[in-house]
């Protein structure tokens, strides 16, 4: 534990040193770059420090914790969630503007570099938080958001039960799931969260991270044109998917207010307990989603 925190302290010191050196170079006036190009270089130089700091802090905060049935989320999870939300709040609107501004062929009455600057701040927060969560989960023992090996069919069946009946039946039919049997019982998280929400979040966040890093890499490495083209295209696609995911996430959690309370206070409520093991095939589905 002490070693983890020592590593985290070293990472904090390195990150602060890196940020001071990078911003010092950018603000020295020695470079002939304009504001936008200067910000590009600042961003690409800050990325390794943000990733390393997030990873080190995540590992330090992770590890075995005292079991507490009254808690649904640990303070570190709550902090990471809201940091990620803040990152999206900064990066999504500015990313949308960069894309739609070109489509609409209009400009805002403020310099474009400011849009990019806010986008980069949001992206840095997102990268930091993703590394934080990776380290945190790697060091911890809670895997309740993951579908265990060999359990996908059970989780997908549970998901089909949680969806509105018509949609659930359609998905079950496509995936060859049998909804006539006993309805699976969800664990700490609903099947919607384990079989759909978390995997799709993982996919879109991985896509936006890899494509964003490829785009940023061009300022330190000659990235081939076709690769850059596809990275840019898929970065926009990932942005659109994240917009959809955020809307769906808000819709899902607002319908279950105790989830909002849990992600604010950490406290679980009785309404978040797993659904009772009931519901024969004829009555299955339609209660949650």
């Amino acid at each position, binding site marked *: 534990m002490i070693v983890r925190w020592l590593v985290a302290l070293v990472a904090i010191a390195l990150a602060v040193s890196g940020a001071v050196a990078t911003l010092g170079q950018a603000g020295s006036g020695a470079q002939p770059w304009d504001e936008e190009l200067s910000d590009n270089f600042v961003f690409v130089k800050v990325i390794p420090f943000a990733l390393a700091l997030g990873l080190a802090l995540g590992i330090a905060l992770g590890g075995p914790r005292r079991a507490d049935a009254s808690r649904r989320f640990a303070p570190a999870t709550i902090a990471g969630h809201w940091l990620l939300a803040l990152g999206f709040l900064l990066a999504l609107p500015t990313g949308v503007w960069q894309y739609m501004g070109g489509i609409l062929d209009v400009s805002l009455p403020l310099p474009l570099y400011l849009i990019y600057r806010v986008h980069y701040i949001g992206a840095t927060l997102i990268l930091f938080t993703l590394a934080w969560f990776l380290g945190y989960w790697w060091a911890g023992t809670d895997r309740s958001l993951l579908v265990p090996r060999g359990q996908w069919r059970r989780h997908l069946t549970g998901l089909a039960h949680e969806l509105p009946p018509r949609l659930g039946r359609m998905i079950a039919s496509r995936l060859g799931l049998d909804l006539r049997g006993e309805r699976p019982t969800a664990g700490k998280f609903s099947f919607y969260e384990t079989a759909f929400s978390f995997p799709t979040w993982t996919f879109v966040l991985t896509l936006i991270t890899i494509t964003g890093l490829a785009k940023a890499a061009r300022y330190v490495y000659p990235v081939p044109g076709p690769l850059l083209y596809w990275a840019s295209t898929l970065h926009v696609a990932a942005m*659109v998917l994240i917009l959809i995911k955020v809307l769906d996430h808000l819709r899902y959690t607002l319908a*279950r207010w105790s989830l909002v309370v849990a992600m604010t206070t950490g406290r679980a409520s009785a309404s978040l307990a797993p659904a009772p093991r009931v519901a024969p095939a004829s009555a299955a589905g339609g209660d949650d989603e």
Partner: protein
Amino acid sequence: MKAFAALLALVWAALNAVLAILMVVNAFVAKTAQHEGLPAQAALLLGGLTIGLFAALLAWECYRLVTKRAAVRG
């Protein structure tokens, strides 16, 4: 607190709805076709329609939250 959260989410849904409309409309603009091509037009249309659908679902959930109908669901 619920009303405040619903208001914030409603603002987010409205902004996304505006974006959805812009995406769908610009999927059919000649300039987009000339500059971006058919795949980009299809992406704008599909993306705009999906964002619009989810924005409408979120707006509906905000309404339910404020009118307390969601309270029984936790």
